[in-house]
């Protein structure tokens, strides 16, 4: 599934602040934007309320943090160069409480203890990490030294007396009570770690974000290897933070790099492959992001972000999004494996300060109390319900937790396997599932290899009492892929275009597409601004017009934006004027339908570009400004009502534009086409033309009548004495100039009618083809279609082979192909009187050399008639086509010569061998023959019929059961 994305719910730009750090207080009311010149406090509930506290320093503020305890919410700490400053924010002023100086180089990070209101940890590249008690600011209460400089310091959010620091690619976990000796040392990444965060729910879990473009999830008690890794391809990760709800992460990219990739991604810990959501809109990298709730009882969280584009944005995380991170999914987890528990269970939202270890213990206790059998059933049900069914090329055909079975199909290239998994009762506690292939197209050696991989994978997991279905399936497809890779690389003659295995194509594109599926990124910068009005000619003579309501006007400059992305800019500019939290730009673009209420609330999107013109000021002379300004308060006051009451969608109108066309439906209905009674036909048609007011056509038809009579006369016996009528100036030249004229005015109706009227059937009576005597005309294979040859017979010594040539074409029935065995008359006798031929040609009103063009006219007109629903008239015109389109054929037969192995269409190959050889009498077949479509063997009809009177198998002994395979041919 594609990644969802959204844009912010709120946007504000504070260009003058030049803030480098941002923090949100624990109550969620104030955001602190700290820059070199000033500290600015933005009231997030009323963002107009910005209070600036001037600051005189030549140093940037590297980081800020608010006290996480609600009782001391107004206290915050800032780090600038080597020192920390503690402020109290009260009554609109920031009172400087104390400064903390001990570091000898720039402080890189600060963190308040979540358990002690007075304790702050700080770290610096000077290799020291300090703990401070803000009541005793003179010197740190504890110091921890390492060899390498420290970049991040973060307290454990669940257990007291534990914090972590990062040093380049390493991670250290400390207990302040144990002095200058880390509890653990983890070599976490190969490059510098930029971001660190502890899990809000599990005491042992933390996450690191690194320059090496990956995010790793750690259980520090078991730090041999990370528990999970999210790879962001080639984008270094700046921050990775747990979500306060469910099991999610938000990642941001490194500010130093201008890559155009400024989105934050929301990940569910259950899926490390693809983010579940993207937050798009920042024009530059996001410097920091924090969580907030508008009020404690509100369900929705908000993500507050500050970017180097100097804009503050607030993104709403509604319950649907939270659900994506596993929040509110009430799955009772009875899995005994604690690791699984921590990764898969969803938990209720908790206050950050409250430990939830007790909750886990409770869960564990209950799970042990339950009956062992139901517990295992439950755990299997859980596993089945939680399995990610989006593994590429793997489809889960069936799962049954009661019978403890699972049926899976995996496809790679043209290989496919169906795997049966049976889960023993002890699974997953030490007992691995049983794997069995029920249907495979693999070699036995491949099968063996895959089974081994599966066994290894499953054992590895169940030995640690972990479930293994998903890892097994992933390994199944990856080993299948690697085994068939070689095969797929070599061109396959049977599959001319590798699209038969679309699944394989998808698999290839799957990985590369992972990050491209987020909308609104750089690939989407050139999407044209969509049409909001248009007119299309449809069918025959209709004009469909759609557009905006007349009173909906373009609200900005005179020129319509070029790209859709230009409108984002427009929207942002306008939102600045309207301080009320406004609509996220194109929230409707997001994947999952937003709840209906939200739709009502945010009538946004492209229509935002257009605003309603105030009725009172219709005078156009007013400047744009005046037009716009009164509009905004109105939108503010009753955003919902104004847009609801006025539709932003205009009507779609269907116009009858047939009068604009040079052709007339009425004429099409009335026109007669009867070459046997031309005078009557012409007068009737002239009447019809006068009825629709086409005076020129009235004239034309009487003229045509006159011309036609003459053509009949010209068939006199004295053909060689005078030149035919058609060649005189009132004959063919006149007709051609008439056709030219009507072509020019695109009156295809008249052109086609004239072509039909003056058409002479003789033109096609004798196809000028040099064909040897009485040959069967197998029309040559249609070259524009891919042809799959199917070589059905191969035993060369046992008779002749028929090669049915199956065309990849939809179409008619079998019988068509037999119709095409056309026997042509013998070649027109040698020494044909050229003169006579020329005369016949000349006596035609329409130049036979242009017959193809005239056919085109007729076909074009017939198509129009068809569109009008006049199918009889259409068919009548089509009768006058000189070269009827041959019915498409599904199946042609090629014969492989029994003597020289050449393929031929005729009974004789080019070497004059008789190509067909009877399998019974072993002589060449000239007359009637029958053959088996399956094995390609056969022979003289009589011989074959005799044979199959008693036998059912092929006379050649090839083992083919011809009779059952061709009941239509041999059965009677």
């Amino acid at each position: 599934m594609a990644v969802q994305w959204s844009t912010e719910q709120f946007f504000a730009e504070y260009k003058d602040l030049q803030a480098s750090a941002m923090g949100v207080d624990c109550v969620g009311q104030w955001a602190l934007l700290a820059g070199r010149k000033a500290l600015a406090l933005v009231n997030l509930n009323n963002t107009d309320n910005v209070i600036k506290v001037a600051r005189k320093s030549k140093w940037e503020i590297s980081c800020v943090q608010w006290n996480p305890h609600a009782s001391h919410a107004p206290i915050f700490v800032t780090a600038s160069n080597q020192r920390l400053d503690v402020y109290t924010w009260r009554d609109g002023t920031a009172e400087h409480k104390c400064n903390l100086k001990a570091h000898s180089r720039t402080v890189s990070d600060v963190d308040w203890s979540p358990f002690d209101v007075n304790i702050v940890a700080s770290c610096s590249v000077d290799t020291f990490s300090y703990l401070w008690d803000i009541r005793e600011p003179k010197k740190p209460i504890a110091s921890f030294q390492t060899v390498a400089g420290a970049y991040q310091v973060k307290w454990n959010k669940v257990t007291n007396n534990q914090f972590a620091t990062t040093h380049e690619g390493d991670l250290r976990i400390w207990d302040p009570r144990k002095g200058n000796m880390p509890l653990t040392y983890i070599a976490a990444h190969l490059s510098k770690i930029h971001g660190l965060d502890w899990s809000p729910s599990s005491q042992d879990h933390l996450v690191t974000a690194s320059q090496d473009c990956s995010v790793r999830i750690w259980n520090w008690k078991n730090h041999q290897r990370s528990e999970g890794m999210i790879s962001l391809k080639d984008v270094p990760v700046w921050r990775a933070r747990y979500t306060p709800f469910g099991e999610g992460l938000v990642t941001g990219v490194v500010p130093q790099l201008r890559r155009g990739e400024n989105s934050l991604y929301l990940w569910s810990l259950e899926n490390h492959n693809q983010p579940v959501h993207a937050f798009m809109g920042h024009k530059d990298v996001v410097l920091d992001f924090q969580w907030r709730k508008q009020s404690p009882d509100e369900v929705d969280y908000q993500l507050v972000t500050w970017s180097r584009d100097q804009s503050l944005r607030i993104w709403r995380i509604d319950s649907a999004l939270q659900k994506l991170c596993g929040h509110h999914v009430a799955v009772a987890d009875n899995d005994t494996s604690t690791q699984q528990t921590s990764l898969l269970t969803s938990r209720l939202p908790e206050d950050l300060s409250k430990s939830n270890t007790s909750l886990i213990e409770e869960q564990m206790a209950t799970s042990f109390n339950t009956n062992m059998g139901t517990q295992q059933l439950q755990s299997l049900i859980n596993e089945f319900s939680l399995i990610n069914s989006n593994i590429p090329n793997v489809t889960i055909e069936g799962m049954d937790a009661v019978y403890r079975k699972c049926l899976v199909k995996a496809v790679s290239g043209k290989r496919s396997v169906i795997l049966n998994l049976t889960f023993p009762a002890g699974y997953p506690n030490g007992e691995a599932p049983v794997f069995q292939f029920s249907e495979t197209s693999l070699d036995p050696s491949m099968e063996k290899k895959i089974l081994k991989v599966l066994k290894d994978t499953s054992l590895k997991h169940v030995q640690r009492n972990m479930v293994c279905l998903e890892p097994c399936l992933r390994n199944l497809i990856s080993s299948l892929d690697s085994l068939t890779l070689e095969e797929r690389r070599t061109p396959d003659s049977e599959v001319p275009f590798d699209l038969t295995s679309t699944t394989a194509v998808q698999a290839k594109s799957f990985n590369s597409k992972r990050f491209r599926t987020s909308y609104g990124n750089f690939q989407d910068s050139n999407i044209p601004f969509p049409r909001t009005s248009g007119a299309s000619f449809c069918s025959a003579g209709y004009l469909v017009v759609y557009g905006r309501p007349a009173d909906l006007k373009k609200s900005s400059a005179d020129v319509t934006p070029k790209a859709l992305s230009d409108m984002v800019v427009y929207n942002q500019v306008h939102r600045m004027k309207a301080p009320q939290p406004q609509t996220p730009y194109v929230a409707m673009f997001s994947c999952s339908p937003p709840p209906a209420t939200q739709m009502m609330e945010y009538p946004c999107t492209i229509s935002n570009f257009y605003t309603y013109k105030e009725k009172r000021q219709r005078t156009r002379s007013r400047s744009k400004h005046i037009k716009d300004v009164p509009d905004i308060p109105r939108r503010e006051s009753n955003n919902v009502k104004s847009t609801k009451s006025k539709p932003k969608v205009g009507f779609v109108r269907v116009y009858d534009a047939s009068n604009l066309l040079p052709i007339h439906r009425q004429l099409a209905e009335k026109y007669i086409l009867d070459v046997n009674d031309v005078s009557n036909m012409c007068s009737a048609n002239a009447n019809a033309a006068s009825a629709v007011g086409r005076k020129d056509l009235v004239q034309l038809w009487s003229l045509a009548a006159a011309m036609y009579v003459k053509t009949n006369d010209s068939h006199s016996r004295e053909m060689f004495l005078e030149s035919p009528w058609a060649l005189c100036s009132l004959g063919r030249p006149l007709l051609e100039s008439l056709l030219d004229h009507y072509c020019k005015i695109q009156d295809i109706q008249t052109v086609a009618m004239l072509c039909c009227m003056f058409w002479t059937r003789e033109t096609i009576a004798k196809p000028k083809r040099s064909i040897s005597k009485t040959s069967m005309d197998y029309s040559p294979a249609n070259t524009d279609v891919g042809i799959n040859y199917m070589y059905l017979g191969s035993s060369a010594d046992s008779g002749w082979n028929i090669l049915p040539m199956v065309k990849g074409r939809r179409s008619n029935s079998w019988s068509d192909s037999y119709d095409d065995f056309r026997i042509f008359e013998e070649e027109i006798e040698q020494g044909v009187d050229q003169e006579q031929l020329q005369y016949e040609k000349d006596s035609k009103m329409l130049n036979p050399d242009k017959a193809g063009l005239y056919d085109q006219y007729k076909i074009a007109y017939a198509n129009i008639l068809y569109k009008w629903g006049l199918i009889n008239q259409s068919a009548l015109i089509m009768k006058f086509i000189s070269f009827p389109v041959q019915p498409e054929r599904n199946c042609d037969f090629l014969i492989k010569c029994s003597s020289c192995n050449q393929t031929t269409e005729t009974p004789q190959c080019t070497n004059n061998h008789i190509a067909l050889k009877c399998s019974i009498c072993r002589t060449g077949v000239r007359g009637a023959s029958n053959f088996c479509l399956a094995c390609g063997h056969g022979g003289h009809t009589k011989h074959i019929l005799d044979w199959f009177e008693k036998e059912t198998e092929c006379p050649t002994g090839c083992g083919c059961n011809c009779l059952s395979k061709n009941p239509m041919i041999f059965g009677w």
Partner: protein
Amino acid sequence: MVSVLNTIDTAHEDMVHDAQLDYYGTKLATCSSDRSIKVFDVRNGQQTLISDLTGHEGPVWQLAWAHPMFGSTLASCGYDRKVIIWKETNGTWAKLYEYSNHDSSVNSVAFAPHEFGLLLACGSSDGTISILSSTGDGTWDSKKINNAHSIGCNAVSWAPAVTPNALFDTGNRPPTVKRIVSGGCDNLVKIWREEDGQWIEEQKLEGHSDWVRDVAWAPSIGLPKSIIATCSQDCRVIIWTNDGTSNTWSSKVLQKFNDVVWHVSWSITGNILAVSGGDNKVSLWKESTEGQWVCISDVNKGQGQISEGQRTLQ
């Protein structure tokens, strides 16, 4: 001269981006920013909603009806990078096929002339053009013209299926060549030709000074002449003509409009061109016998403002 036959209130919740009648003019399909496609029965002036097709995850930009020999089939494309082919079977509309192999918004879809089979061209902002073909057994093949327009393809249109200089004999008539014209953000109009199953660039038409927004190959009435209309962000409409014998295309600027021109559409006989753009207006153009293009009408689409008296327009 042009009279309103039907006024349809689509009840879309957001901007309508395309509206198309089917082959017979009995069904109207509309698509919108509200992510839905609606199909109406518009026979005899009625407007009955037949189906509300949801499946796109973003605004739907364009629609195309297939020839009725393939059944009631509709293709749609949108911002969500998807192309969806819908089909009606026994009165119910359902998704027949979904193609999501584009990396950006798909801006244009067009079915090929029916002579070529069920074939769909899709132009995307990722710069590529996809050609999807139904193999007839429910699966679809796709071919891609990569980097057709460097920063995005905005429109595609098929050439009519006309046999090149129609020959005289059934036997050696050459197969009809498939051609596509496309327009993109590189300000170019390109003509593509299929040769041995591969699509190759046949012609590059330079004339616009900004993004090409729409291209339309005029229907053929049999003459070997080819006509293409293109419109652009540069507010101009250009008519390109080729005499069918050489490779040269001559261009003629129809007019410079006051606003972006979004859409050009040919009438069935190719004698009238409808032009519409950002100013919410439609104009109809006709080539005079002297070869000049003249505006024959100016329909102000003040939707909902056209009163009974204004129902006929010229």
